[in-house]
C-alpha cells in the first residue's frame, strides 16, 4: 500500500462548463462580514460568474495532507479545486506531482507578486503555486489573566502557567520559536544537535504538564474558552479573535525570533476547475482586493501595491506591522530552512512523538 513511482496525471479542465470553485483554506484567513458572508468572494462571484464554495478545512498541514493524500496519489478529486498550504507542504505536493501547473497567461495580476516571493526553492518560477498570505508565528497571552505580559518563549515555561500553555502542532513554528529562543538561527545551517536540544525542552514542558494543548488552528478555541492563557500562535489570528471576542489578547514576535512563512494556492491534480482557480487568483492579486482582505485578516499580503490601496482605506492599516512589516520587524522573524526528505521524516517523527506523549 504505497504511493507508486508513477505520478498522477492532471484531470481535464471543465472550467468552461462548470463555473465553480471549491476552495479549502485555514480558519481566520478571509474577510467575513457580520452576516457570515465573505464580501470579497461574493464580489468575485458577481464579477466573474464563478461560484466559490469556501471551506475552512485546513487545521494543520499534516492532518489535511493525511486526509487527501490517497486521492492525490490516484490523481482523483480531493473535493477541492484550490487549497492554501504552507511552503514546505506545497514543496512536498509539487515534488510528488500532486499539483497542476498554472497558466500564468490567465493570471495577469501575478505581475503584482512581491519580487521576493517570485522565485522560491520549492517552486522555481511559481509554476505550481501562488502565495495567498504570509505571517509570523509568535507568542500571545491573555491580557486579563496575565496583565504582566510575556516577552519570550522562555516566559511560557513559567510554573504559574502550568497546564495553561499551548503550542502549535506545526513543527516548524513551534520548534522554530523554541530553537530561536536557544539562539539558533532557524534559517541557517543547523543540525540534529540544535533540533534535539529544542525537542528536549519541549518534551520536558509537555511531560511536566506545562504545555497542555498542542493544536493546529484549533488553538483559537482554547484561547476563547480559557483553557489556554498563553501560547505560540499565528499573528493575524489574534487580531481577528480580539475583534470577535473583545480585546483580550496580545501578540508579540519574541525578541529572540519568530518564524515567517507563506501559505500558497495550489490546484490539486484531480481538480477540473484549474482555469476558474486561475481567475480567482488573478482577482485576489488586484491590490485593492488584496488590501481589503489584509485589512481583515491582518496577515502579510504578497501583493505589491496593496499597501497603497490600504492607505486609501485607512492610513493606520498601512503601518500595521503584521500586514506590512518593516525591515526591523522582518529582522526578528526567520524562515525555517528547507528540510531534506530524510530530515523531514526524522524530525517529523520526533516532533509527532511529543504530540502523542508517552
Amino acid at each position, binding site marked *: *500500500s504505497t504511493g507508486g513511482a508513477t505520478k498522477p496525471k492532471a484531470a481535464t479542465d471543465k472550467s468552461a462548463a462548470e463555473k465553480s470553485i471549491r476552495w479549502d483554506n485555514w*480558519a*481566520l484567513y478571509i474577510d*467575513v462580514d*457580520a452576516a*457570515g458572508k465573505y464580501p470579497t468572494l461574493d464580489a468575485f462571484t458577481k464579477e466573474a460568474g464563478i461560484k466559490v*464554495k*469556501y*471551506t*475552512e*478545512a485546513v*487545521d*494543520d498541514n499534516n492532518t489535511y495532507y493525511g486526509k*487527501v493524500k*490517497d*486521492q492525490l*496519489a*490516484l490523481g*482523483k*478529486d*480531493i*473535493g*477541492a479545486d484550490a487549497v492554501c498550504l504552507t511552503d514546505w507542504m506545497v514543496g512536498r505536493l509539487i515534488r510528488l506531482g500532486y499539483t497542476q501547473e498554472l497558466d500564468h497567461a490567465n493570471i495577469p495580476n501575478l505581475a503584482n507578486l512581491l519580487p521576493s516571493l517570485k522565485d522560491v526553492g520549492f517552486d522555481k518560477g511559481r509554476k505550481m503555486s501562488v502565495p495567498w498570505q504570509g505571517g509570523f508565528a509568535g507568542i500571545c497571552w491573555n491580557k486579563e489573566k496575565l496583565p504582566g505580559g510575556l516577552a519570550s518563549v522562555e516566559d511560557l515555561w513559567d510554573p504559574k502557567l502550568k497546564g495553561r500553555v499551548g503550542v502549535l502542532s506545526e513543527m516548524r513554528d513551534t520548534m522554530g520559536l523554541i530553537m530561536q529562543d536557544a539562539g539558533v538561527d532557524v534559517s541557517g545551517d543547523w543540525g540534529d544537535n540544535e533540533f534535539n536540544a529544542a525537542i528536549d525542552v519541549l518534551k520536558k514542558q509537555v511531560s511536566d504538564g506545562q504545555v497542555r494543548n498542542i*493544536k*493546529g*488552528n*484549533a488553538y*483559537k*478555541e482554547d484561547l*476563547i*474558552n480559557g483553557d489556554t492563557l498563553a501560547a505560540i500562535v499565528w499573528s493575524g489570528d489574534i487580531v481577528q479573535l480580539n475583534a*470577535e*471576542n473583545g480585546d483580550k489578547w496580545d501578540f508579540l514576535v519574541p525578541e529572540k525570533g519568530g518564524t515567517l512563512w507563506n501559505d500558497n494556492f495550489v490546484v490539486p491534480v484531480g481538480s477540473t476547475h484549474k482555469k476558474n482557480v486561475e481567475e480567482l487568483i488573478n482577482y485576489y492579486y488586484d491590490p485593492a482586493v488584496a488590501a481589503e482582505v489584509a485589512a481583515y485578516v491582518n496577515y502579510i499580503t504578497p501583493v505589491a501595491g496593496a499597501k497603497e490601496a490600504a492607505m486609501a482605506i485607512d492610513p493606520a492599516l498601512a503601518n500595521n506591522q503584521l500586514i506590512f512589516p518593516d525591515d526591523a520587524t522582518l529582522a526578528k522573524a526567520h524562515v525555517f530552512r528547507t528540510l531534506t526528505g530524510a530530515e523531514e521524516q526524522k524530525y517529523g517523527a520526533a516532533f509527532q512523538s511529543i504530540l502523542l506523549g508517552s
Partner: protein
Amino acid sequence: MVPIVYTFIFSFNDSQKSNITWRGFTFDKWLNVCNVQNGAVCEAFGNSLIIGASATVAATALGTMIAIAIVRYRFRFRSKVSLLLFLPMATPEVVLGAGLAAQFLSVGVPKDIVTIILAHTMFCISFVVVTVKARVASLDPALEEAGRDLYGSPGQVFLRITFPLLLPGILAAALLSFALSFDDFIITNFNSGAVTTFPKYIYISASRGIPAEANVVASAVFILALVIVVSAQVSSAARAKRLAKSG
C-alpha cells in the same frame, strides 16, 4: 443528558464563527441552517442520510439472509462462519478503518461515498445478524408448516408468513444499522476521501469552532428520533394494556 441539553441550547446561540460563548437567543440558525457556508452542514447531513440508508438496506438484506441460514439450516464451517460474524464486532474501529483504507489504497479504489457505504455495510452486517437471529429463533416453525398445510406454496409462505413475522426484527436491525452508520466517525474518517459526512463535518469543524447550525441539525435529528421512539413506545405500551384488558 447534559451535553444534549447544551447542544440544544447552543443551537439558539446568536454566535458568529465559533459557538462557545453565549451571545443571545436567536431562531436564525434554525431558520437558515442550509444558508451558511454554502450549505456545508446540510450537505454533510445529506451525505450521512444517503450513506446510512444505503448501508442499512445492504446490511439488512445480507444480514437477514445469513441469520435465517444460521438458525434454520445445518452446514459445514458453521463455527467458522460464526467467528467471521463475531470478529467485526470484536475489532476496534481504528483497525477496521485502517485495514479497509489500506486495502482500497493498494487496489487503487478512490475513496468516495461508495467506499463509505461499503465500509459501513461491512460493520453493520454482524449487528443485523445478531438482531435478526434472535427473531428467527423465536419464530415457531409450526407457523410456516401451518402455512404450507393451508395450501400456501413455498413462495407464498415466505411472503405472507415468514417475512411479516420477521419484520419487527428486521426493522430493529435496520434501525440499529442506520444509527451505527449515521454516528460513525472513525471508520468513515479513514475511508471517506473528499466526502464529508455529518460526524466528519463536526470533527473538521471542531478545529475552528462548531457553527451553531451543526447544533441545529443534531438537535433536529435528536428530536425527530425521540418523537418516533417515544410514540412507538407509548403506542406499544397502550397496545399491551389493551391486550391485557381484553385477554
